[in-house]
């Protein structure tokens, strides 16, 4: 009997530990929310309630109600179901969250969704139609095996498209320099350079 009950006892204590941890963690958050509320109450533009935003994503307008603190990355992933853009560092250092805003590559983790309203947002999901051919850059990444685990790949591809459009893919050295904002933990870098070299001649858009 002791043998049978010890795993259960172990689970119970682990659960209790987790609950206790969560309660402890919740205390400062509650206090913080209360003080923030007091501060915001003095301001007539109180936007602690969710705000409605119209985001133009991959050619279609999407309506969302968001906490004002929501980044574009979280809006895409958690509210619009577009999980292709990845959250790596969430501090603008790894490039996994790269999307195009008005055709320029930017970091969605450092962009507030509210700031992206009225702009054209393109994510990895918007590069090819569901039944159409892949974007030349997507195909090139497959052709050159330009990834291993694939986590950084959507950001790499969006950034690579920006790199070519900016005219910064003229040489291997230029590609390496201007793709330096996208880290690949699997170190697929030589294959990424090869993929961009293939795709740059096939991209028709400006």
């Amino acid at each position, binding site marked *: 009997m002791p043998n049978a009950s010890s795993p259960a006892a172990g689970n119970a204590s682990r659960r209790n530990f987790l609950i206790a941890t969560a309660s402890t963690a919740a205390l400062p958050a509650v206090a*913080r*929310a209360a003080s*923030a*509320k007091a*501060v*915001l109450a003095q*301001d007539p*533009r*109180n*936007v*602690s309630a969710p*705000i409605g935003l119209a985001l133009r994503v991959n050619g279609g307008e999407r309506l969302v109600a968001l*906490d*004002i*603190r929501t*980044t574009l990355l979280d809006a895409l992933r958690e509210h619009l179901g577009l999980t292709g853009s990845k959250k790596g560092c*969430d*501090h*603008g250092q790894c*490039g996994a969250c*790269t999307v195009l805003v008005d055709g*320029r*590559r*930017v*970091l969605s983790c*450092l*962009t*507030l969704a*509210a*700031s992206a309203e009225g702009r054209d947002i393109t994510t990895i999901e918007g590069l090819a139609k569901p039944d159409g051919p892949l974007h030349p850059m997507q195909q090139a990444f497959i052709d050159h095996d330009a990834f291993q685990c694939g986590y950084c790949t959507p950001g790499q591809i969006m*950034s690579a498209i*920006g*790199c070519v459009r*900016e005219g*910064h893919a003229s040489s291997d050295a230029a590609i390496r*320099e*201007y*793709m*330096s*904002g*996208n880290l690949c933990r699997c170190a697929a870098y030589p294959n990424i350079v090869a993929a961009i070299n293939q795709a740059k001649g096939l991209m028709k858009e400006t």
Partner: protein
Amino acid sequence: MRPFAFDHVSTLAGAVQAAGHAQSAFLAGGTTLIDLMKLDVMQPDVVIDINRLGDSALGKIERTADGVRLGALVRMADAAAHPDIRRDLPVIAQSLDLAASAQLRNMASLGGNVLQRTRCTYFRDVSYAACNKRSRGSGCAALDGVNRMHAVLGVSDQCLATYPGDFAQALIALDATVSIVGAGQKAR
């Protein structure tokens, strides 16, 4: 990140007026502000998005009688790629070209670049209570910390953080003038 009130402004006067609040912050590229708000280092109550001012002279590079005027909302990448800048003021282009990453240079504004905060790890880590930049009078954890990457010249017993920007150094080298707009006044 702490809650904040959010405001878009589309005129310079509107921006100055909106910033009357003590704990307000202007949002342009956001590459410093959003990062530091996530870390709880910066805690504005009001965030004022000024990107719509980019349609005005603040978003342009213009030749003047005695040189070039760089709008504070011009993006780093655009200033670095501008043909006049590359030809006549290459030090500006060079100071911007290889800073950060291509994505950050597409986002970050020239005004925000000058105003970027120090990378001092003690400033960025709120688990260290002592930081005179974050909380005046609290002390400086870097003085007796791992400070090999900190300043050697121009330090005090209050702070030895370094300024991280390259672009501002180029402005100093060129003896540039910075125009500032505030409540009821313009300064140079």
